[in-house]
């Protein structure tokens, strides 16, 4: 799963632009991760300029 550090995220949209599943959504600049859409490719992690996204194992 993808964890978002909300206090670090600047809402720039880099992660949204590389997500092939539309699993990251910026609504009113707040980033949300939609687990049911995510294919776990983790491309969003290196896309983030401030390392606000982390991949984590379930449980």
């Amino acid at each position, binding site marked *: 799963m993808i964890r978002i550090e909300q206090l670090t995220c*600047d809402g*720039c*949209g*880099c992660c*949204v*632009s*590389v*997500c*092939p599943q*539309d699993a990251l959504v*910026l*609504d*009113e*600049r707040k980033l949300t991760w939609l687990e049911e859409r995510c294919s776990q490719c983790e*491309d969003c992690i*290196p*896309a*983030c*300029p*401030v*390392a606000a996204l982390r991949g984590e194992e379930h449980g």
Partner: protein
Amino acid sequence: MDERYDVVAIGGGPAGAMAAWKSAQAGVKTLLLERDREIGLPVRCAEAASTAFFECYFKPEEKFIANHIDAEEFVSPDGMAVVLEGDDKGVVLERKFFDAHIAALAAGAGADIATCADATGMERLENGWKLHATHQGRPIRFEARVVIAADGIESRVARWAGVDTVLSLDDLESAAQYDMVNIAIENPHHLYCYWGNEIAPGGYCWVFPKGDHRANVGIGVMASRAERKSVKELLDEFIGARFPGGKAVGFVTGGVPLARPLKELALDNLLIAGDAARIVDPLQGAGIEAALLSGYLAGETAGEAVLKNSCGRDFLKTYSKRLHGRIGKTLGINYRLKNIVQKLSDEEYCRVAGLARKVAPGKMSLLKMLTIIARNDPALLLDLPKLFAQTHFRHFEK
């Protein structure tokens, strides 16, 4: 805000605001949607541009020009600089005033403008789109005959219409920047770009002066090469080494699409413009000029389409044709050049810079520099003169 518009531009940056202006000028009912609280903020942009490019659209105003530029310096990893004195003089903009100026032109021509207005989805209608959005936190819906997708790097509006706008990590430049004061800049009328795989893998750091002791200082890194350190950490190291006394009065992150332009920029009742269309110059990461041109053509085409009651792809594709005709070739060549530049080792950077420095001062041009970079790719070398042969967007004829 009403429930029905002829044209809705989504995104209040230069592309969307310009599109709204031209569409409103055509006399059709136009709305400009901006997600953020204020048009022009936050400034996710290094803010450098050539002077000539916007003068064909509107008069420059002092309030949106922070500084005048007469040369560009490329600093190679060994710290040596190559000075490029181009034919075009440049400026560093105050984007917050620049963007607001274009939005004001749109409003003056009759466009409605909604800020804090975030599009969240859309549905196909027989002759248009039904848009879903939140406006100041409340859900709203309205109809548009033509939607202009100018929603920047995310490019989700085009995705809703079925266009694949997903960027590969090789084509995303992940960026961060400070508005810095209290820094000494050797020549406050030069732009500085620092290259090197330690400094900014697959990208560069920039110092774009906005006055004697103030600059937009930032970094762009190829996302596929962001490994050990975050982009922000790399920028902090760069600043710590060069401007230890500098103080940041602002910080913001952003993304720059360095991709090939989308092939199809027009669908039924939809046009794609600006960064959303992937028309940023892939070599330098400059997007404002192409955004204005695409907005101009999109707004004009959309206005005409509504007046002719012909909003299908068959008519709208004239936009795609015109835009690709103006800048398609340039962007294609620069994309190939980008792929070479991003793979240069530090030794190769220094060698290219060393060769460039042998050219007499004042005689170094971008073309000469690119010729050195592309010397091992004969096909690309042959294409280079086309970069300058194509009608350039900054000399746009109305």
